[in-house]
Every structure is written in C-alpha cells, then in structure tokens.
C-alpha cells in the first residue's frame, strides 16, 4: 500500500493541473482574507468567522480529486495503473488516501497563509484578532474537512468516470441541489456532503455561511454523516471498478 500511495502522490505532483488548482486555491483564499481584513470592521466575537474562514481548499481539492480519478479513464492510464497494481480496491483506496493527504496539506498551507495575512492586517489596523488557540482549532478543522471532501470527490469521480460530467455534476450538487434542499427541506439539506456537512464539521457559524437560521448538525454527527457518504461512494465505486472490463 505504501508504494501505491507514493505512486499516487507522484501522479499528483507531476501534472500542471494540480499545481494550477492548488495555486488558485491559495490565491483565492488569501485574496478573500486580505479584502475582508482590509475592508471590514470585525468585532472580537466575529473576527474568527469573518476573516479566518476563507479557506477554499475544500472546493478546489474536491475538483482536483475528481480530475485525478476521472483522468485515469480520460487519458486511459487506468490500464497501466492496474497492471502495476492489479488489486483494484487497493488502487482506489490508495487514490483516496493520496487525495485526502493532499487536501489536508493544501488546507494547512492555505490556513497558515491566511492566518499570517489576517493577523498582520488586523494588527496593523488595531483591530481585534482571535485567540491563537481558536485560530489553531480552525486550521485543524479546515484540514479535516479538506481531507474528507477530497475522499468524497475520489468516490464520486470513480462512479461517474466522465470528467466533464463529474465536475458539472459536483457543481450542480453544490450550487443547485443542496441549496434547494436547504430552502425546501432543511431536515434533508443538512446532510448535503458539499455544503452543509463541511460547514458543520468546520464548526462555522451557519448564519455566516449563508444557512440563516437552519439548525445544522453538530460537528460530531456531521462527521459521521460525511464518513457515511464517503463510505457509500467508495463502496459503490469499488464494486463498479472490480467488475468493470477494461477493454
């Protein structure tokens, strides 16, 4: 498994797509943090939510995970991957773990960057800054969320296989289906894997995240629900991959 994981991490590091999307994630997160820190007047109670929760790694790593797994079919590298590692479920597991690690590291990089930038700008404006322990907790929660959504992205991509369809499908779920469910059936919508559950796990104020007065799940329950989504997507994808002919 160690060799497979190493192979997947080499794949990640040796394409420009990963570097471009990771760079975009860092840039957008920093931009949001800097703009909010420069233009808003956060209070002591709102500063953590307002300035330090702009980590966009979750969105970008989910896209990257989908691109990574569907790219195996798009470029037909799935054949050489499975010749090197014929145990298909282990291959999928290695891919999932690799993107979880990548999500974790990307989120940590972004969180550290926005924390430094946020503290620097707020301090220079004599505005309140969050307790360092609160900022550290947020960094940890963001990293966990990034690892989880990356794992979900691999499962989703392995199920759909077609790269454009998978990415458009993810965007539809994130920006159309889940918001509609939150508006029409919030009891169901709170289980959404791309919005509500990551927000709950990261312990972000629902109002600040655009959920208004919807009662999101507790972080622990949301974590269990997210793991269930990942488990279901992985199990379905693994079953499909095991039985599929690579012609």
């Amino acid at each position: 498994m160690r060799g497979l994981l190493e192979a997947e991490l080499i794949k990640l590091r040796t394409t420009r797509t990963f570097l471009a999307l990771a760079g975009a994630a860092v840039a957008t997160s920093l931009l949001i943090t800097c703009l909010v820190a420069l233009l808003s007047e956060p209070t002591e109670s709102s500063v953590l939510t307002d300035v330090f929760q702009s980590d966009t790694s979750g969105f970008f790593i989910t896209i990257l995970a989908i691109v990574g797994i569907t790219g195996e079919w798009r470029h037909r590298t799935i054949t050489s991957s499975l010749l090197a590692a014929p145990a298909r479920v282990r291959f999928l597991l290695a891919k999932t773990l690799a993107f979880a690690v990548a999500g974790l590291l990307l989120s940590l990089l972004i969180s550290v960057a926005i924390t430094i930038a946020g503290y620097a700008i707020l301090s220079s404006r004599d505005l309140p800054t969050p307790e360092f322990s609160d900022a550290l907790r947020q960094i940890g929660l963001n990293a966990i969320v990034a690892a989880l959504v990356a794992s979900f992205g691999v499962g989703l991509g392995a199920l759909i296989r077609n790269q454009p369809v998978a990415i458009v499908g993810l965007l539809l779920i994130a920006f159309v289906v889940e918001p509609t469910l939150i508006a029409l059936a919030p009891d169901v919508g709170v289980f959404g894997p791309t919005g509500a559950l990551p927000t709950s796990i990261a312990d972000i104020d629902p109002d600040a995240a655009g959920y208004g007065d919807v009662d999101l799940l507790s972080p622990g329950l949301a974590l269990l629900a997210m793991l269930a989504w990942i488990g279901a997507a992985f199990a379905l994808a693994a079953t499909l991959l095991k039985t599929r002919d690579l012609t």
Partner: protein
Amino acid sequence: MIEIENLSKRFGKVEAVSGLSFSVAPGRVTGFLGPNGAGKSTTLRMLLGLVRADAGAATFAGRRYEELPHPSAQVGAVLEDASFHPGRSGRNHLRVLAAAGGHPPARIDEVLERIGLADAADRRVKGYSMGMRQRLAIAAAMLGDPDVLILDEPTNGLDPPGIRWVRELLRAEAGRGRTVIVSSHLLSEVAQSVDDVVVISRGKLRANGPLERVLGSSDGPVTRVRSADPTRLRDLLAAEGMTVDAGGDDALIVRGTDPAAVGRVANRGSVDLVELVAVSRSLEDAFLELTGEAGE
C-alpha cells in the same frame, strides 16, 4: 509459461473469444496472429486481468495475473492503446509505475538508456512521436525486469527502423530465456522474429505450433480440398495419416500430400468433392487461409 485453457468471452451478442486454448513456452518468441477483431487483444487483456473471462482460465505457471506475488516484476505488458498522461514526462511516468510496482528507482535510468529514450526522458509525453511513445511503453513493461513479455501490436505506427528495433528486442529477450508473446494482425511484421505462432480468427484457435510447420511449405505439397461432408472427409484423410487443418469455408488443408493422393482417399470413401487444388503458398497466403480471410 503462459497457459490459456478454454478461454471464452462474450460482449453482448459478440463472441469475442470462444474456447481458446494454447500455451506459450519460455525462451521462444510466440506470434499471436489473427486479423483485426479476431480476439487477440481481448485474450491478452483476460490474461492480464483487465477483462474478466466468462469461462476458462489464463495463467502464468498456474497463477492468474492478480494472484502473482509481484505481478509487474514477473510480467511486463505493452498493450495496443498504451496511453500516458500527456502532461507528465516520460521519466515521471516511469517513476509512478516504479513506485506502484515496488521497483528500485535506479531501474528507471537503466530502461530509459536501454530503449534509447534517455535524452527525451524529461520532456512531456504530449511532445513524443508515436515511436517514442511505443518505446516508453516498452520501457514501462521492462521496468520490473520480468520473465514474461506480452506485446500487443507493438509495431503499430512505427517506422521501419522502429519495427526492426522491436524485432531485435524480442529476439534478445527470448535469447535470455524469457517468455515472449507478440500479437499482430500482419504476419509480415513478425514472421522474421517469431519461433512459434498461435493463429486465431473470430475468437477461435485456427493453428498453433512452430512457424514453419503451421504456415510454411516445408512439409512438401499442400492441397486444399472441399466437400459436402468435411467431417467425414477429414476422418478419412486422418485415418491415412495425413496432416489436416481447417482452411475456412468448410475447406480442409492437407499438408505433405498432393491432390491426386487426396482424391484417391475421397474416392475410396465415396465422398463427393467440390474443390481439389494444389496450393502454392506464401506464408501470407497460408495465414490468410487459416484465418478464413483469403479472398475476403
């Protein structure tokens, strides 16, 4: 040793491979021949665990590919549609495979040097020519220094020097005692480098054995004969000790026997003949007869 036993595969209504059995011996180059769509790639993909067989078994010394303890160190494969991520360099492609297969990184430079791709190793694959991609695919197959090499149409798209290079590589690997099977739909591209041939058509085995015996004319005269009752005619000829193969369209190919002798046997057995001709054949003619493609 590669062993294929009663292998069958159906895709919907299409019977791609049907009851196929043959074996491939070490230290020899075996040509796996048949026209396009004959079932060659499907057979090799079943052997490599990429396609699931409906029936039968395809094994390496009794073990399926996925059961091998160290598959890519025991079997190297170049498949017809060898594909690479276009944005990754040749060297990085091999780094991925070396890590996944548990091969030492030092092997990467060794195989790049051996296949003549060392100078282009750090260029992205999308800038490679067809020949360079094929060399990279062969480098990937040789990364684990395997005892078995499987090459599916390795000369597709190659220029004459590239084809010669592949031929020499096949001979060299067999010379080192390795088991080499190379598929092709063009006999002329492999005839100079193979020891044995397995000929298939429409998913079924047509012939199997040393090249000269299966396709050559060293057995003396060859006769093509057709009758309304080919099964009885085959039995009568076989009873006389004649070597009889199927020739497509219910025809029989009788080796080492001239038409007069075949006609006498048919006459004694009261079998009506509708065709009886002496065959003057090239290797290519023999191949086309066996695959039922002659005249198509």
